[in-house]
């Protein structure tokens, strides 16, 4: 089938983090993740020319700090990483496939997961949602936008982008669960992204992003 594929590198790192944290949001050291990924997927994470040594360079660095954060799977602080709710869900899925001894899996359309449900419930309590649904959308401030995303102005670049991604994904997935609510949430999301385009651009163009 067309949508059967192997784990990509980010997924392999995520799985390593999931196993190391024992399926919790406990923090894990960067070096431990690098070693675990090397042990699980030696050919992918070995130091070039030194098959018995793990690579701790960009091959593992970039997915952790960029791709996985942007998708809202991990949080980082210093050289420690932990899984978000979404990361835990996805890590569990990867672990289950991996347990079967075959890490090819079928890509499925986004389901309305528990973490998404939590995200939507959180959004429903935000001032942005309340103002928007009570016809006062013009009163929505930048602080409401951050509240909506679960960020602040101090949030790091990839964490911000991760939150943006997660919220968008949760809103999309709510379509299957509650189509009427989805229409409102989608309108709200579009409105906020348009109104606070500058804020999004600011984070997207921000240099660095590690924390």
């Amino acid at each position, binding site marked *: 089938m067309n949508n059967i594929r192997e784990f990509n590198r980010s997924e392999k790192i995520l799985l390593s983090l999931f196993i190391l944290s024992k399926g919790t*949001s*406990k*923090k*894990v050291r960067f070096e431990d993740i690098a070693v675990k990924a090397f042990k699980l997927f030696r050919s992918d994470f070995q130091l070039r020319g030194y098959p018995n040594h793990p690579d701790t360079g960009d091959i593992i660095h970039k997915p952790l700090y960029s791709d996985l954060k942007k998708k809202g799977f*991990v*949080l*980082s*602080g*210093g050289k*420690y*990483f*932990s899984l978000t709710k979404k990361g835990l869900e996805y890590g569990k899925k990867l672990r289950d496939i991996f347990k079967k001894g075959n890490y090819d899996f079928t890509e499925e359309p986004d389901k309305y997961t528990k973490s998404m449900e939590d995200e939507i419930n959180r959004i429903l309590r935000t001032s942005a949602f309340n103002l928007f649904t009570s016809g006062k959308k013009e*009163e929505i*401030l930048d*602080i409401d936008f951050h509240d909506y995303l679960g960020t*602040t*102005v*101090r949030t790091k670049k990839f*964490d911000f982008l991760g939150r943006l991604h997660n919220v968008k994904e949760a809103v999309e997935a709510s379509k299957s669960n509650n189509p009427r609510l989805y229409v409102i949430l989608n309108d709200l999301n579009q409105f906020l992204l348009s109104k606070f385009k500058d*804020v999004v651009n*600011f984070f997207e163009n921000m240099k660095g992003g590690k*924390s």
Partner: protein
Amino acid sequence: MKNVNTISIIEEPNEFDDHLLDIIGNNFNFSHEKGLAEWLKNSIDAYIRQDVPDENKHVVMRFTDGDGGSTNLPIFEIIDYVGMTSTDINKALKRWGDPEAAKRGAKKGIRLRVYGGHGNGGKFYMRQMFHVSHFITYRDGYLNIFGFNDHRKYGFADGFKDKKISPDLALKMANIDGFIPDNVKRKILLGKTGFTVVKGIRPKNIAKKISVSHFIQKIKHHPQSRRALKYSQVSVIHNGKLVMDRITMNEIQPLDDFKDPFIFDIPEYLESNDVNEKKSIQMMTSKFPAGKLILKTSAIPFGHSGHSAELNCIDFIGETGVIASYRMHELGFLKYYPQAQFIYGECSCPILEDPDDDCVQNDREKLVESDKVKTLLKWVALKVDEVAEKIGNKEREKQKVEELHTSEIFNEFLNKWKNQFMSKFLREILGGPDKGSLTGGLGDDGSGGGKNGKSETKDGLGSGGGKGGGQGDQKKKGLGFPRVLISGQDDPLNPGTTVNFTERHHVIEQRLQDVPEQIFWINREKLLARKILEKYGKDSVEWRNYLFQCYVNIFITSALEAKSKSEGGALSVDDAKRVIDETYSKIYDKASTDLEKFLLNESYEVKEEA
């Protein structure tokens, strides 16, 4: 035989019992200042009828104290240099309730705008408020004395109707010879003009001494006399001595920010106030043009009481001068009443004098309480509120500038304290436990200021001039101290603009561009901040504590961030609680000694060197 439905009445003159005058007169309920204002207006009207220019409209108010007995009684007099003939008296003065009374006897070709109205005020004042009263008037060589006796009946004095006498003798009889300006006296002696002395003997409620200055102050501010005084030369004599050369109105200086008057056109239609039935009330017709409301400001509030409070009003101006006057609180509910105390004005609305729906009352104090008047008053109140709101906004702006100045001083003090004493603490929480691993730490502590130990100036501050830290393998510049500013201040990242937040923004705010610069803003628009400033003031211990709490908030945020960073981006509730408790404890312990006076003393002055 005629049908009873088609009969026609043969009109006869009305007949009244004099008792009717008592009934009406009682309603006048005169105060002396109001009565004197009526007399004054009559005198000015006499000049207006003769087309005398303002600078020659001389009027004298003469007051003579009594001795408390029955021989020398207190006397009020008002003197003008125009005079009346018996014809004037018979056709105008004797008639009650004649709206044209003030215009009679005018020079031909003059379009009159006299102050008098219904020809009642001055007469009723004479009749109701004195034991006896009379006019001594001289014109065209004839002296007439006309007045009210102690039975409140009027008539000419026996032997003094059209008494032909010389001007010289007339002046002596009226006892006004001694103070008439020379040019006026010459005219009287040449028969070119005359004079009238209106005299009230034993005024009601005054047995002996007349409080002249009190009366003058009241007359100055009385709506019925203000305009008359403005355009005439009124002097005051008390017990034969000139005590005031000219009564002048104190010029009202406007508020600096509102020097120009606010002018509002009264709309053609106004919505009535009736809650049950809304209707449009017509405020102009082809016959009665649109009115205007002119509002002006006073640099000093008129206050609730005292003479100047009388000026805190809207005068309604009609064809014959002030037809009513309403103090601000009489207009109806004013949302910005404190600011309305800086406002006064005039409203002209010709339709109020439409004979088919005349809204002018006999005493010209208040208008008739018709729908039209109620609706107009409501509209006037709205306009007053509009201007008052503008004044209020300006006041708040100024207040905020003052607040900001003081707050900036306090804030700078806290900033210095934070930089000096908290550097170690900040290094612990911001630099993190992994010394030199990635990011350079903060500088060393600076040397403490003030005196130590038992010194009285324990609150003194020193400079934090330590050396920069950071010895990690990847040297990077560490984040500097948080810099705390107060909203309303100039934007250090964009000089020349101020940074403001709204009531809905957070207590501590940061804009995106503030983050790398470590700038935090204390949002002065937050409701509690506003309440503290309004209730306790910018210098208060409450406000200083509020500012301090904002600093605590920033420290806690920084501490939580640092902890979160060391925990891989996530923080458990237990960890968060520990950080908060520890941070509070450290800051409070330090502040309890370093900031004791700042936080606990009712008054506190930041020393310049701080």
